[in-house]
C-alpha cells in the first residue's frame, strides 16, 4: 500500500519528468501554458535569440487582456490605447503567436477574456493538469483540482521552449472552512477572511488545498475567486478537489473530451481528492459560519475585517503608514468615508455570478451621484451572457459604465484608473499603494458589497439590501 497522498501530491506525481535530488531540482511537465501580452514579449525574444520554436503550440494559448482598452474604437476606427507602447505590446503578442502557431484569442475573437476567466470557460483548464502563466493569479485554475501557479518571464521562455519547468516540490497546507456560510457571504468574503487569518506572507512556500463544507458549498466561480487570491497569502497555488459540481461545470465546454472519453476523464478527476490520513505540512481551520461580508482597510490584502468593524490599532510602522495612506483611523469604522469609484471586474470577480450579484443589488436603484462605477466583464463570453440576461441594462440604468472585457482598473495599465487620493471599492485582488492608479486608495470587497457601496456612496454591508428584499 502506498502512503496516503494529498491532492497536490497526486497532481505533482503525475507530472514529474525528472525527479528532484538534494542538488538539483526536478523537471515538471506543464499541460497548459497560458500567455498574455505583458509578461511574454521578452520570453519570445529569448527563445528566438536561441533559434528555438515554441515546442508545443497545441498546449499554449494566448489572450489580450492587460494593456487593452475597455472602450470601443472611436469614429476613426482606432482603438483607444493608453500609449503607443501599450499598442506595440499587443501587436508584439499578435506577431509572436502568428510566427509560432500559437492560438490567440485576439481582438476579433469571441473567446477573448482575462486569461484566468478565459481558460476555464473554454475547458482548457481540466482537473489533474499542471497550468502555468506569467501571472501570479494563475492559482485561479486550482478551483478545478489543477496545480496552477504563476511564473516569471524567464520561466515563460522555459515552458515555451521545453514545455517544462525546473521545480522543487512545495509544502502542502490545508485550509478547512467548515460550517454553513450566511446569506450575503460570497467566495470573495471567504477569501478575504482566509487571507486575514493566514497573513500576507503566511502561505509562503505552500500550496494550499481548500477543503470543508463552506468551500464545497461555493459554486465553481466562487471557488475560482477563493483560489485566485491564494497568492495574496503568499501561497504558490490554491487547489480544491474536483467533485460533481466540477464535472457538471466542465461538461460540454469546447476543449473538454466528449462522450465516453468524458465519462472516463470524469471518473479519473473524481479520484483527485486527498486520501484519508494524508499529512499536510500545515493545517488551518476556520469556522465558515462566523464569516461576515469583508472589506480591507489597509494596503495589503490581509488587512481586512467585517464591514463596519473598527479598524484595529496598527502594530508596526508599516501598518501605521498603511492607515495614513488610506486615510483611516484606528478604532473607527471605514463606512463613513465617501467612495469615489466602484470597480466590478477582474479575474477575481468578473464572472457571470459576480455580475448577477451586483445587478441584484442595483436593480431599480441608482449609483449615488458623484460616484463613478465601472463594470468590466471578465471575458467576451461573460459579456454575451450578461447582455442576454439584460444585466448591462441594469448597470447602465443605475448610472454605471458597461465596458469591453479586460483587466482594466484591477491593474490600471490600460488607461482605466482611480485618481490620486480617490477612494475605490473594488472587486479585484490587490489594494497595494498605487495599484489602481498613482495615489489611489483601494478597498477590496465582494461584488455585492461593491454594488451596495455604489448605491450608498460609502462602504456598505450588502445585507442591508438583502433584508429589504426579504421584508
Amino acid at each position, binding site marked *: 500500500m502506498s502512503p496516503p497522498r494529498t491532492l497536490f501530491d497526486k497532481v505533482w506525481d503525475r507530472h514529474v519528468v*525528472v525527479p528532484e535530488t*538534494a542538488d538539483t531540482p526536478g523537471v515538471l511537465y506543464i499541460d497548459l501554458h497560458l500567455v498574455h501580452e505583458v509578461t511574454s514579449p521578452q520570453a519570445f525574444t529569448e527563445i528566438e535569440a536561441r533559434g528555438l520554436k515554441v515546442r508545443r503550440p497545441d498546449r499554449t494559448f494566448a489572450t489580450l487582456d492587460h494593456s487593452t482598452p475597455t472602450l470601443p474604437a472611436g469614429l476613426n476606427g482606432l482603438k483607444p490605447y493608453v500609449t503607443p507602447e501599450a499598442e506595440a505590446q499587443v501587436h508584439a503578442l499578435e506577431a509572436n503567436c502568428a510566427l509560432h502557431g500559437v492560438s490567440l484569442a485576439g481582438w476579433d475573437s469571441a473567446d477573448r477574456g482575462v486569461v484566468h476567466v478565459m481558460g476555464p470557460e473554454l475547458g482548457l483548464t481540466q482537473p489533474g493538469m499542471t497550468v502555468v502563466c506569467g501571472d501570479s493569479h494563475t492559482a485561479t485554475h486550482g478551483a478545478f483540482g489543477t496545480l496552477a501557479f504563476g*511564473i516569471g518571464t*524567464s520561466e515563460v521562455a522555459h515552458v515555451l521552449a*521545453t514545455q517544462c519547468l*525546473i521545480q522543487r516540490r512545495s509544502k502542502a497546507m490545508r485550509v478547512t472552512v467548515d460550517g454553513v456560510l450566511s446569506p450575503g457571504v460570497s467566495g470573495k468574503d471567504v477569501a478575504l477572511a482566509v487571507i486575514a487569518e493566514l497573513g500576507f506572507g503566511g502561505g509562503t512556500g505552500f500550496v494550499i488545498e481548500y477543503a470543508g463544507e463552506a468551500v464545497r458549498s461555493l459554486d465553481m466561480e466562487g471557488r475560482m475567486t477563493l483560489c485566485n487570491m491564494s497568492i495574496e497569502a503568499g501561497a*504558490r497555488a490554491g487547489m480544491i478537489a474536483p467533485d460533481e459540481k466540477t464535472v457538471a461545470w466542465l461538461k460540454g465546454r469546447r476543449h473538454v473530451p466528449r462522450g465516453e472519453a468524458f465519462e*472516463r476523464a470524469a471518473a479519473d478527476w473524481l479520484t483527485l481528492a486527498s486520501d484519508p490520513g494524508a499529512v499536510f505540512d500545515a493545517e488551518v481551520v476556520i469556522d465558515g459560519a462566523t464569516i461576515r461580508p469583508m472589506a480591507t482597510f489597509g494596503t*495589503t490584502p490581509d488587512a481586512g475585517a467585517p464591514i463596519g468593524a473598527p479598524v484595529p490599532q496598527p502594530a508596526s510602522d*508599516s501598518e501605521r503608514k498603511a492607515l495614513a495612506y488610506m486615510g483611516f483611523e484606528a478604532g473607527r469604522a471605514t463606512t463613513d468615508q465617501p467612495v469615489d469609484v466602484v470597480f466590478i471586474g477582474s479575474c477575481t470577480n468578473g464572472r457571470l455570478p459576480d455580475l448577477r450579484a451586483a445587478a441584484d443589488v442595483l436593480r431599480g436603484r441608482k449609483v449615488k451621484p458623484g460616484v463613478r462605477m465601472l463594470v468590466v466583464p471578465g471575458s467576451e463570453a461573460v459579456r454575451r451572457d450578461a447582455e442576454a440576461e439584460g444585466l448591462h441594462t441594469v448597470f447602465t440604468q443605475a448610472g454605471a459604465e458597461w465596458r469591453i472585457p479586460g483587466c482594466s482598473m484591477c491593474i490600471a495599465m490600460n488607461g482605466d484608473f482611480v485618481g490620486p487620493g480617490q477612494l475605490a471599492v473594488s472587486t479585484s485582488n490587490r489594494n497595494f499603494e498605487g495599484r489602481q492608479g498613482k495615489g489611489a486608495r483601494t478597498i477590496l470587497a465582494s461584488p455585492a458589497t461593491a454594488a451596495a457601496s455604489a448605491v450608498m456612496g460609502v462602504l456598505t454591508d450588502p445585507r442591508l439590501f438583502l433584508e429589504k428584499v426579504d421584508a
Partner: protein
Amino acid sequence: MPEPFRALTSKVLVLSQSNIDTDQIIPARFLTTTSREGLGRHAFHDWRYEADGTPKPEAVLNRIDPPEHRILLAGDNFGCGSSREHAPWALVDYGFRAVISTSIADIFSSNALKNGFLPVVVDQAVWDDLAAHPEQPVTLDLETQELRRGNHAPVAFTVEPFARQCLLDGVDTLGWLQNHLPAVEAYERARAKEPA
C-alpha cells in the same frame, strides 16, 4: 544569461517597510515594454517622484549614491504580489544586486536568482543589527553562504543549491532544461499511451 555572482560587499540601503510589493518596485504602468532593458529608471518610481515627475527630495532613494548601495535591507515579505520579472530587472538595472529581509516572496526569489540578484533571508535579530549600522559594509559571500560584517561572527544563509550553482557558474538554466528533452519526449510518449 546572468553574470556569475560570487561575493558582494556594499553598504546596505534600509527600506524598513514590510510587504514591499512588486507594484512598489515597478508600478504596472511601466510594464507596457517589450524589452527587459532600461527599467532601472522606473525602480521605486512612485517613491522617488511626484505625480508631475519632479523628484521627491525626502525620498531615501534620491538621497543616496546608488553605486555605494548594492544591497537592500528590506522589511518582512519583500517582493510579494505580482509575478512580474520586471521587478528584479528594474532593481538590477538600477544597481542593486541583493536584498536581505526576514522573508522574501517565492516568485520574486525565483525570478531574482535567474537575474543575478541574490535574495538573502536572515532572522530578526540579525536584521535589527544590520539596520542599526547602515554605514557598515556587509559582505554576502555566496560561495560560503555567509554574511560578514566588521568584527561580527559570520551569519550563515542558505540559497537553494541548484540556484546557487547557477549563480556561481553563470549556468544557462534554459540550456540545462533542454538537455533533459529526451526525458521529456519519453514522458510524453508514456502519457500518450494512457487511456485519456
